[in-house]
C-alpha cells in the first residue's frame, strides 16, 4: 500500500490531457454539483449516531489519520520537536493510544523532524514527515522556485509533499498551466507522496472543486487536499463530499485508489467522526485507512484524546489533564 501514484495517466484519460483544449472540454463537461442537495446530504449524514465501541474505534482511527501540523512563521526547532513527541505518544498516560500519521511542517524544519523521529519506526508505526512546498500557502512564485522548494524538502527527508495549486491560473481557466505544474512537482517529489492542495475556499464553487479534484487526479496527485488552513473557509463537509466522490469515481474509471485530506477547521472528535462517516458512505469503507484519508489538524488531537479517555474511563477530563503539544 505504500506505493505512490505512478504519474502515468491511465489509458482511459490519455486523450484528455493531450492539450489544454481537450483538458478544458473534459473538465467543463464533468457533471455539475447541485449545492442545495449536496449540503442537504452532508447535513443528513452528519446526524449519524456513533456510540460505544464504534465510537472508540472511530476515535483511534481518527488519531491514526492525523497529520499533526504546525505552519507558523514563528515555528522553531523546539516547537517541532515537541510536536514530534506529541505525535509519537499523543497521550502519555494511555500508551496504547495510536500514533498520528504524519508531522506536517515547513521545508526548512524537515531536518529537525527527521532527527526527532529517528529510530521511532522501530518502536511502532512509522510517522511520516509531510512538508508543505511550492511557495505555500499562496503558490505565487515561479515554477523553478517551487520545484527547488520541493526538492529541498525531499532531500531533507520529507516522505510527503503538500503542494498548492495556482488558484489564479485555475480561476482564469488556464487548466493546462495548473496541470503542467502539478506534473512537474510530482516529478520533483520522486518517491514522496504528493498532496495537492486545491484551496477550496478560494475556488468558491462546488463545480470548481470537482474540476480541480479531477485535474489533480489526472496530473498524478496521490492526495487531493482541501485547504492550506490559511484561508477561510477551510475544510467543510460538503466540499469533502465532492472530493470523496471524485476519488470514488476515479477508482471506478481507472482501478487506482487515491487519497483525500481535509485540512483546517476540524477541531472536535465529533467533527472528525462526521468526516469518517462521509468517508465510509461516500467514498467507501476501503478508504478508512491512514493511507487513504488524513486530517490536516492540530487541536483536534487533544479533543480526540479527551473523548478517548471518556470512552474508556466513563468521565470527562479537563483540558489541563492533556498535554498542549
Amino acid at each position: 500500500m505504500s506505493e505512490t501514484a505512478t504519474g502515468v495517466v491511465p489509458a482511459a484519460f490519455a486523450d484528455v490531457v493531450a492539450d489544454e483544449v481537450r483538458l478544458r472540454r473534459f473538465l467543463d463537461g464533468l457533471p455539475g454539483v447541485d449545492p442545495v442537495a449536496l449540503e442537504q446530504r452532508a447535513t443528513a449524514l452528519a446526524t449519524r449516531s456513533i456510540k460505544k465501541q464504534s465510537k472508540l474505534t472511530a476515535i483511534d482511527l481518527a488519531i491514526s489519520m492525523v497529520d499533526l501540523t504546525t505552519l507558523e512563521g514563528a515555528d522553531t526547532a523546539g516547537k517541532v520537536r515537541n510536536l514530534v513527541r506529541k505525535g509519537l505518544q499523543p497521550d502519555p498516560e494511555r500508551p496504547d493510544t495510536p500514533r498520528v500519521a504524519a508531522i506536517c511542517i515547513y521545508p526548512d524544519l524537515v531536518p529537525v523532524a527527521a532527527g526527532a523521529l529517528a529510530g521511532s519506526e522501530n518502536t511502532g508505526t512509522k510517522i511520516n514527515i509531510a512538508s508543505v512546498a511550492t511557495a505555500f500557502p499562496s503558490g505565487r512564485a515561479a515554477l523553478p522556485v517551487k520545484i527547488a522548494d520541493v526538492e529541498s524538502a525531499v532531500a531533507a527527508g520529507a516522505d510527503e509533499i503538500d503542494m498548492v495549486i495556482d488558484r489564479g491560473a485555475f480561476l482564469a481557466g488556464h487548466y493546462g498551466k495548473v496541470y503542467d505544474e502539478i506534473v512537474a512537482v510530482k516529478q520533483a517529489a520522486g518517491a514522496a507522496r504528493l498532496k495537492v492542495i486545491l484551496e477550496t475556499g478560494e475556488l468558491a464553487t462546488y463545480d470548481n472543486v470537482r474540476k480541480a479534484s479531477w485535474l489533480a487526479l489526472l496530473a498524478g496527485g496521490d492526495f487531493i487536499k482541501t485547504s492550506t488552513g490559511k484561508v477561510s473557509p477551510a475544510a467543510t463537509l460538503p466540499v469533502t463530499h465532492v472530493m470523496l466522490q471524485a476519488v470514488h469515481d476515479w477508482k471506478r474509471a481507472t482501478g487506482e485508489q487515491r487519497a483525500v485530506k481535509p485540512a483546517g477547521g476540524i477541531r472536535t472528535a465529533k467533527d472528525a467522526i462526521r468526516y469518517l462517516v462521509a468517508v465510509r458512505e461516500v467514498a467507501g469503507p476501503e478508504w478508512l485507512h491512514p493511507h487513504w484519508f488524513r486530517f490536516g489538524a492540530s487541536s483536534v488531537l487533544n479533543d480526540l484524546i479527551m473523548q478517548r479517555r471518556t470512552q474508556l474511563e466513563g468521565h470527562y477530563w479537563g483540558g489541563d489533564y492533556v498535554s498542549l503539544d
Partner: protein
Amino acid sequence: MSRSTESVATDPTEWDYAPAPESEAIGRVKERYLPFIDGKFVEGSGDDLVSVNPGRDEPLSTVSTVSEADLDTAVHAARQAYEGPWSRLSGAERGKYLFRIARGIAERSRELAVLEALDNGKPIKETRDFDVPTAAQHFFYHAGWADKLQHLGHGPDPKPLGVAGQVVPWNFPLLMAAWKIAPALAAGNTVVIKPAETTPLSALVLAEIIADADLPPGVVNIVPGAGDVGAALVRHPGLDKVAFTGSTTVGKQIQQTLAGTGRKLTLELGGKGATIVFSDAAIDQAVEGIVNAIFFNAGQVCCAGSRLLVQESIAEELLTRLRERVDTLRVGDPLDKNTDVGAINSRSQWDKITELTRAGVDEGAELWQSSCPLPDKGFFVAPTIFTDATQTMRIAREEIFGPVLSVITFRTPDEALAKANNSPYGLSAGVWTEKGSRAMAMAARLRAGVIWDNTWNRFDPAAPFGGYQESGFGREGGPSGLAAYLDTDDEALIG
C-alpha cells in the same frame, strides 16, 4: 508487539455503527387510548382495536373505537362548539389557541417522535427531523393567519364553513392530522377527525395537547376506528365540509356519497410521481433526489417519485451510481437513529408491495434489490429498483406505496413529458437538469400539483399541496389551503 497500533489492530475498513436505539420509554406508550369527544376522553362503544408495532410485528397498544352513535355525539359537539364559542371568537383568540397547540407539539416532540416511529414503523430520524417539527410548523403558520383572513382575497370578512369531517391516512399520522386541523381551526371551523386504523396513537396524544391548550370542548373531536367509521363520518349529514387523504378508490366512493349534498369536499389521493433526469443533471445530487423521492418513508408517500424517467444517454451511468448509493441505505429498527429505511406500516401493505413486486418480475422487468440485511421480525422490504420497465407494466402504472422504483428511459424532452403525464394520477413530479430554462419549460407542461426542480419532498406550510385527476382536488397549505375551509362561493378555488 508494539502497543501503539493495538487499538486499530482490527481492520479499520470494517468499522461500522453500533446500534443507537432511541429509548422506547420516551414514547410513553399507554396500555389503552380513548376517543376524544366534546373535550373529554371517553370510552367509545365500538370494538377495541389493537395497534401493531410494525417494526417488530407485536401489539403496541389498545385503542377504544367509536360507533355511529358516538359519531353523532361528536358531530353534535362540534356543531355546538361552532355555534357556541368558536365562531364568535375573534381571529386573534383562535390564533392564540393554535399557537398553544404548536408549542405543545414542540414541547412533546421527543415523545411524539418515538411514539410515531413505534406506531407507524418509520425511522426515528424522519419523525424527529420531519414529521413532528413540520406538524408544529403547520400550527404556527396557520395561527398567524387566524386574524388575517381578510387579506386572503375573499372579501373583508370571509366566513368559515361550519363542521368539518376529516379522515387521514397512516403514512404521516400526526402530520396529516396537523395539515387538516390547523387550517380548519384558523378559518373558524370545528372538526371531527378520524385517524387511520393502524396508526391512531399520535393523533390521540395530539388530543392531549389540545386538551392542555384549553381549547373549548367540541372544537376538535378525534374519533379512532377502522374504514367503516371513516365511511360513516364522511356521509354524516351534520357536516358542512369533508376532507379526505388516502386511496383513490376510497376517494371516489366519498365523492359519490357526497354528490348532490352541497357539502364541500377536498380529496388528496394517490400518485405515481415521475422523477425526470436529463443528461446534463448534477448526477450525484440527482441520485440523492431519486433516493429521497422513493425511499423516504419507505416509499409510503402519496407524492413519492416511484417512476424514474432517465435520459437514455446517461441511464447506465446513473443506475450504477444509484445502485451503489441505495446499497448504503440502512434498513431496520425504526428506533435506531442510524436507520434510513424503516418498516412497512402493516402486513396488508407488505403483502401488496410483495404482490406488485412479483408482478414486475412476471411482466419481465429486471429486479435489483439492496443487499442490506433485513430484521427477522417486522414488516420490511429491501429497497427495490426495476430496470427495463415499460409504460404497459403494472409497476409503472399502479401506485405501489412501497420502496419500489420503476426505471424507464427517454430520449427527448417531449418523450419525457408524454411519459410523465401518461398516468391517471397527477400529484408530484420532479425535474433534474442544470439548465434552468428546460426545467421551467417542463414544469409548465407537467400535469402535477407539485413540481420539484432539482429536489424532492420539500414541504412548507406556506406552499399549497394537492393533485390533478385521480390524485384528487383542492389544496392544503398556504392561502389556497385556507380557502378550502372558507365559504368563498368560488368553486374554482377548491376544485
